[in-house]
């Protein structure tokens, strides 16, 4: 699982940092390192960019995994640099931003947008494969999630916008239901497509999701 992120436009970052001249930069050694949006190199480039913007960079670090509880430790180690900063600019995903705010009394500003949870299908190509809906349908759809891979999230088969295996919203994107059909056919399980899938329950876990396990 990876949290897929994209750096915000520099103008937006500049806007978010208005009135804050001293900045401490945080990257993440896990997801944003893999997506090259918040690893060591990107943090260094950001530090340079901030200086060009006229900001003073009080320091920077890349936390091994920004969303776990070791983040507190790393923040403590960097306390003297963070103390001198007006804010922390986070190049981790939103989960990291959330975690950082738990341990810091300074504003934490995201430098990236969190797009989706995905996997790297081929180098540099990240695909959204699960929407974490709480009612996994993969057992009936040959392991391809139509909630996620179909633009409309349809569970009862393709719409009329399916076009030679591609989707009407983007010719580059596969029609999820063509993929599901092909795979079920190969497996001799097309009867699964004939099943009526009732409307989804959108409150399997009441939002916001909080759950105690064990």
């Amino acid at each position, binding site marked *: 699982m990876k949290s897929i992120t994209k750096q915000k436009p520099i103008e937006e970052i500049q806007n978010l940092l208005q009135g804050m001249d001293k900045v401490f930069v945080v990257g993440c050694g896990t997801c944003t390192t893999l997506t090259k949006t918040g690893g060591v190199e990107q943090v260094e480039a950001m530090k340079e960019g901030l200086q060009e913007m006229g900001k003073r960079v009080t320091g920077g670090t890349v936390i091994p995994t920004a969303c776990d509880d070791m983040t507190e430790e790393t923040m403590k180690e960097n306390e003297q640099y963070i103390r001198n900063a007006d804010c922390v600019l986070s190049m981790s995903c939103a989960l990291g931003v959330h975690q950082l705010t738990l341990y810091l009394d300074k504003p934490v500003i995201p430098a990236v947008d969190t797009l989706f949870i995905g996997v790297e299908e081929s180098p540099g190509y990240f695909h959204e494969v699960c929407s974490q809906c709480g009612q996994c349908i993969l057992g009936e759809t040959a392991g391809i999630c139509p909630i996620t891979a179909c633009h409309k999230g349809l569970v009862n088969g393709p719409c009329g916008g*399916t076009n030679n*295996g591609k989707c009407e919203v983007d010719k580059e994107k596969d029609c999820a239901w*063509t993929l599901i059909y092909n795979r079920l056919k190969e497996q001799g399980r097309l009867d699964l497509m*004939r099943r009526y899938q009732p409307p989804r329950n959108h409150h399997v876990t009441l939002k916001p999701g909080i759950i105690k396990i064990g």
Partner: protein
Amino acid sequence: MISSFEEAIKSDKFIITTEVAPPKGTNLEKMLHHIDILKDKVDAINVTDHQSSVMRFPSLGGCLAIKEKGGEPIMQMTCRDRNRMALEADLLFAYSRGIRNVLCLTGDAVPVGDHKEAKGVFDLDSLQLLMAIRQLTSGKDMGDNELDGAVEFCMGAIVTPEAQPLEPQLIKFEKKVEAGAQFFQTQAIYDLENFASFMKYARKFNTKILAGIVLLSSARMAKYMTENVPGIFVPQDMIDELSDTPKEERLAKGIEIAGRTIATLKKEALCDGVHIMAIGREEVVPDILKAAGL
């Protein structure tokens, strides 16, 4: 009491439906004019529901206008813009105002339209909408609560006979038939051989099939649709027929082609009727009917 359209689809007559598009704005003049010239010439008139995801005056409003003029509306209902509660509520309202026919569609994707950043709802899909209407007909809502006054609709759906690959579409078609779709209006068809083979299959099911007839007004449009609109295939000889026609006569040629297609479908009893979509040129629908000998 069943609707005059439901009576028609229960009879052996060759059914003719067409559609009008509500305006972008509150000036209803053009739509009302189209209703006036079409209402007595067809069995029912569809009113589109923000077609191509372009925000417009609602289908429900257009259907009421048809009712006021003594016509027979088919309310197109997509799942793109309303969750199940809003869809159910609109169905109750539509029924209370005498609308008796509903065409259930999933709806085009939001990004193909003119409100590209809007949320696509799709709480239900076309099949689940058919099932929802069945539930409302039984006197209960989707939450299983008793209704004080149920609905009774003649339900329809769509199918794309030229879709590639076809089998997934047919599986969904069969699910829609099982859900109680009494009629189908197809995506535009031009190749009658392909359509005949689809009908050979569709005839096995207890439902009525109205072939979709989209008026071609130029060779460019025909080519564009074949290349860009999912599930539409215009044969090359038809495109050539249009491009060999002088520019000012191309609309007349398109009317002739549509009329000819309808006449053949009827003569050879290939399907149960037609659904004519003139897309912005609704005023020529009577000419198409004339060209078809209807």
